[in-house]
């Protein structure tokens, strides 16, 4: 039982924080407000790629750092702290991870090294819905032919390859589709937090056999990847909530009313203390989920619990922080408002607290997930 950072984990956190502090500010983020430009800072992305951070969890033989999901999660926590405009969750979690874990050696050799270097940008359709594929496939002489619609895929417009789970008769396959494939059409969405997402429509899109990640039994890949996507959202939520809370603690310590800092009013201090406790709960549940997933241990219960907290804590911390800031919190010249958008996204994506609670409750009623 070790809640401390290893030397390498500490260095990676410091490196990520340094790069993000240097490159991301309210000023740089303003460029993407209200969809003025796609929220993707390619300069920052290249800086991160040069640092090696996006390849944290990729094996050294493919050009990565050879560390694990725990370290990737700690990096994502820092991204949440800065709400950086880079496709780490899409590319690293829903792209690199399943490609490395499930692809055959030929596909790995072809795509993993350039993807780890960032020359190819990946994304995956693992961020919405129930995990049941919304695209259907039928076998052809030399592969599969796809038809259907993925309602929301992050960075689909910017990506080179899309990982798509597809229904194949009673089974699930997972395929790689190039973003410029014939028959593939993207519709840009306007998400609440400005991150670029697109609906993906597929009409008779051909997938050669070489681009099939798994031809059958893809349900385990989908579950495996969605659990990691969920834990990544929790880590991102942790960073965002922690930063919002520290903004509010700082503001209430400076802002004076009745001649004293408003932090000295117990009603204000206690609301912040509740945020502190909430975030500690989210931190511990999230780190536990990252730790277990990083070691390929079964963590369905722990991931569900972390997402319940990510939803509840995000909601409570967001509104508490806005409240103690008064009008300043919603003023777009002050940085808090963008955090509120991300706290909402992380709360709702891949299952709200209510839906995760229902899912965990169903498992408990089957006798699963009890205390050991």
């Amino acid at each position: 039982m070790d809640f401390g950072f290893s030397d390498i984990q500490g260095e990676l956190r410091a490196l990520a924080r340094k790069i993000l502090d240097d490159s991301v500010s309210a000023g740089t983020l303003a460029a993407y407000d209200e969809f003025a430009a796609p929220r993707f800072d390619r300069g920052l992305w290249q800086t991160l790629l040069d640092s090696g951070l996006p390849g944290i969890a990729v094996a050294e033989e493919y050009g990565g750092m050879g560390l694990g999901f725990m370290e990737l999660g700690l990096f994502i926590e820092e991204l949440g702290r800065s709400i950086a405009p880079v496709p780490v969750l899409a590319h690293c979690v829903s792209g690199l991870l399943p490609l490395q874990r499930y692809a055959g050696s030929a596909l790995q050799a072809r795509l993993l090294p350039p993807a780890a270097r960032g020359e190819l940008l990946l994304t995956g359709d693992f961020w919405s819905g129930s995990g049941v594929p919304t695209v259907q496939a039928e076998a052809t002489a030399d592969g599969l032919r796809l038809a259907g619609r993925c309602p929301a895929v992050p960075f689909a417009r910017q990506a080179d390859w899309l990982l798509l789970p597809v229904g194949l008769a009673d089974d699930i396959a997972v395929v790689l589709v190039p973003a410029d494939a014939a028959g593939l059409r993207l519709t840009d969405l306007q998400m609440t937090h400005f991150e670029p997402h697109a609906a993906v429509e597929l009409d008779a899109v051909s997938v050669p056999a070489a681009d099939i990640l798994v031809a059958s039994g893809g349900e385990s890949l989908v579950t495996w990847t969605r659990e990691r996507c969920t834990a990544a959202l929790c880590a991102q939520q942790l960073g965002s909530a922690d930063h919002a809370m520290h903004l509010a603690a700082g503001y209430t310590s400076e802002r004076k009313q009745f001649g004293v800092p408003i932090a000295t009013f117990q009603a204000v201090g206690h609301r912040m203390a509740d945020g502190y406790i909430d975030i500690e709960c989210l931190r511990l549940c999230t780190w536990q989920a990252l730790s277990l997933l990083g070691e390929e241990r079964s963590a369905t219960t722990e991931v569900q619990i972390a997402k319940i907290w990510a939803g509840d804590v995000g909601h409570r911390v967001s509104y508490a922080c806005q409240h103690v800031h008064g009008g300043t919190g919603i003023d777009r010249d002050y940085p808090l408002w963008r955090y509120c958008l991300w706290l909402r996204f992380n709360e709702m994506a891949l299952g709200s607290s209510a839906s995760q609670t229902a899912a965990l409750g169903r498992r408990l009623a089957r006798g699963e997930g009890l205390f050991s």
Partner: protein
Amino acid sequence: MKIQFTDAQLALRDELRAYFRELMTPALRAECERDMGEGGGPLWREALARMGRDGWIGLGWPEEYGGRNLSPMEQFIFVEEVMRAGYPFPFLTTESVGPTLAEHGNAWIREDIVPKILRGELLVSIGYSEPDAGTDLAALRTTAVRDGDDWIINGQKMWTSLAHFCDYTWLAARTDPDVSRKHKGISMFLVPNSDPGWSCTPVHTLGGVRTNATFYDNIRVSDDHRVGELHGGWKLITSQLNRERLSLINFGPISELFNQVVQWARAAPYAEGGFIADQSWVQANLARSRALIECMKLIVYKQSWAMTAGTLGMADASAAKVFGSEGFIEVYRLLGEIVAEGGLLRSHSPGALEQAGRIERLYRTASIITFGGGANEIQRDIISAAGLWMPRASR
């Protein structure tokens, strides 16, 4: 970062579970039930001494005190398991006053008192609160006046729980009569409850648990009974309270209760058909409880780790206390809704069910820890000041 037990720790847990299955005889359980889950009876004392002889109480203590020199994490696993087994373990003596005595006590205390605690032969009650000194503890008026080499102690304490079967009281007394020095005029004493000047009267509480008012009438103790620096008692009080806040949040019994309610709900028929666990509201209550208890578990694991690493912070100890105490109340409500009317039957009533009867009592006893061990309002003050560096109003 590795949030899992080692194989050795899992093996220790299994060994302790087997040990307590054998130790907790039906007669001992009945005696503990009679004593309202507080202990103090002859079988309870014999079991405590046996745990001491078997080396369990001092598992995480240094060998010089008779301990086994494992880490606070192993000590924590032991406390979890003894509580999970339903034994009312005197954790305030062993886990909060004991370590403070070992850290600050003189040779007599370290060589005689502490080893007796670890052998399960000596119990200590806590004398802080007074009729007019609760949350503002430093307003206490009990006095210790120097008389030659001795001290003469006079005063009254409130809520001196377990004092009627403890051997000593860990007593905060004013040694500097200048009340303007408030926090700087308090010293700590170990007062024998066997002294003729010591007396107590019971105070009966909502949960059926007895606590006490204790009276100190010209009790003479030698200077050996004073602990730590003269007038330096406040530091010892806060150090002990930090440890107490951690030991109050023990997730063993509540996780056991949770498992029992789940199994019961899966087997108990629902009036309108199916089983109780089939109902969506029951599932939601179970999941909410599961998520709360998981965090209690992680918070105490982290704090045990922080104690090993020497990084335990004030804000986190207070956060554990607030979250745990309010979490217990919430979980008892959520599980109580599931057992429904069963949770209105006292455990000795005809028709009472084991876990429902426990919930009936727990909802009555749960309120104590939101104010005991330091009111949660004070804990939240500590969190915003020590955890978020927010200024606070002077008091």
